[in-house]
Each structure stands twice: as structure tokens, then as C-alpha cells.
């Protein structure tokens, strides 16, 4: 899984029927210090995340498992909202 921040959402009127009712969010991956890292991606949401929140997300086939028994075609899904990132003092930069 990776850390990220929700920076927006995507609206699709025409889409795969199994995506109906799913929220599509734009996620900026971040490093452990909260800094943006790499290119943003679009991910489904399984936990009710909102814009501005720090989240963690999962990629690959596993990303569709929160929606079982529905087989949702997604390769990235937000699976948790981060309350706190704990780093030992020596590693804070």
C-alpha cells in the first residue's frame, strides 16, 4: 500500500456498469513526510474519503476486493483514512 492525499474527484457519466455508484478520486501519492511524490492517479474509494484527506491505497487485483462480491474493475482503491503517521524522531526531516 502507499500513502496519498485526495486532491480531487472524477465524474464519469458513461462507464463500466460495475463502476456505477463508485466514487472516483484523484490521488497524489505522498512520501512518509507528506510531500507529493510522483504522478497522481485515479482511484476508487472504499472508505468515504474526501478531498484534502491523507489516505492509503492499494493497487492491483487486490484493489477490487473491498467491493466483493461485486467484481469491480479497478486497479487502485483507497482502503483507509490516515489519522496519524508515526516516525521515530531520528527519521523526521
Amino acid at each position: 500500500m502507499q500513502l496519498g492525499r485526495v486532491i480531487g474527484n472524477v465524474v464519469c457519466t458513461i462507464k463500466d456498469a460495475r463502476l456505477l455508484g463508485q466514487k472516483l478520486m484523484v490521488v497524489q501519492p505522498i512520501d512518509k513526510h507528506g510531500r507529493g511524490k510522483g504522478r497522481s492517479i485515479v482511484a476508487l474509494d472504499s472508505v468515504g474519503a474526501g478531498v484534502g484527506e491523507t489516505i492509503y491505497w492499494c493497487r492491483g487485483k487486490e484493489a477490487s476486493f473491498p467491493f466483493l462480491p461485486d467484481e469491480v474493475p479497478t486497479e487502485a482503491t483507497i482502503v483507509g483514512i490516515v489519522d496519524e503517521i508515526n516516525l521515530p524522531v531520528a527519521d523526521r526531516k
Partner: protein
Amino acid sequence: MLIGKVVGDVVATQKTPSHVGRKILIVQPLQLDGSDRGEAVLALDSVDAGVGDRVLLVTEGFSAMTAVGRPNSPIDMAVIGIIDTVDLPEGAR
């Protein structure tokens, strides 16, 4: 599998139900010489690892889910061992 070092953890109250009860570790993958290999990732813990431990990290869904004991769950990385030593012949580093 990769060699990594646990550098912190993440607290998330609102998360996918299958992650409840497992620590979410921040793991920095390492090269053989001990330097960083890419960005730190989040992995579920299956061996009670802690900050500072050198660990064995799986980065693929099936092995991660199996190790954590939560099949059909959105887990793409897991810590599955705490490394005592890595023995390499001269020059392999």
C-alpha cells in the same frame, strides 16, 4: 521479496474491515548495501515487527494476503519475516 527496514507506522481508524487488528508499518525497501531503494511503502504486519527491524517484505497480493491470513482482502504488501542476517559472498554487495 525485498529486504526493508521498518521506519514507522500509520494509524487509521476508518479503514477496510480486513485491515482491522493488524499494524500498518512504514517500510523503506533497501539495496543490498543498506541504502534506500525507492520510496517507503505501507505493509501490513504478520510477524509483530517494530521500528528499526530489518524485515522481509512481500510486494504482491496473494503472498501478502496469505501471510496476513486475510484472503480476498485489499492487501498488496506485507512484512512476513524479521531478518537476523544476510550472508553474501565477497563482492556481491
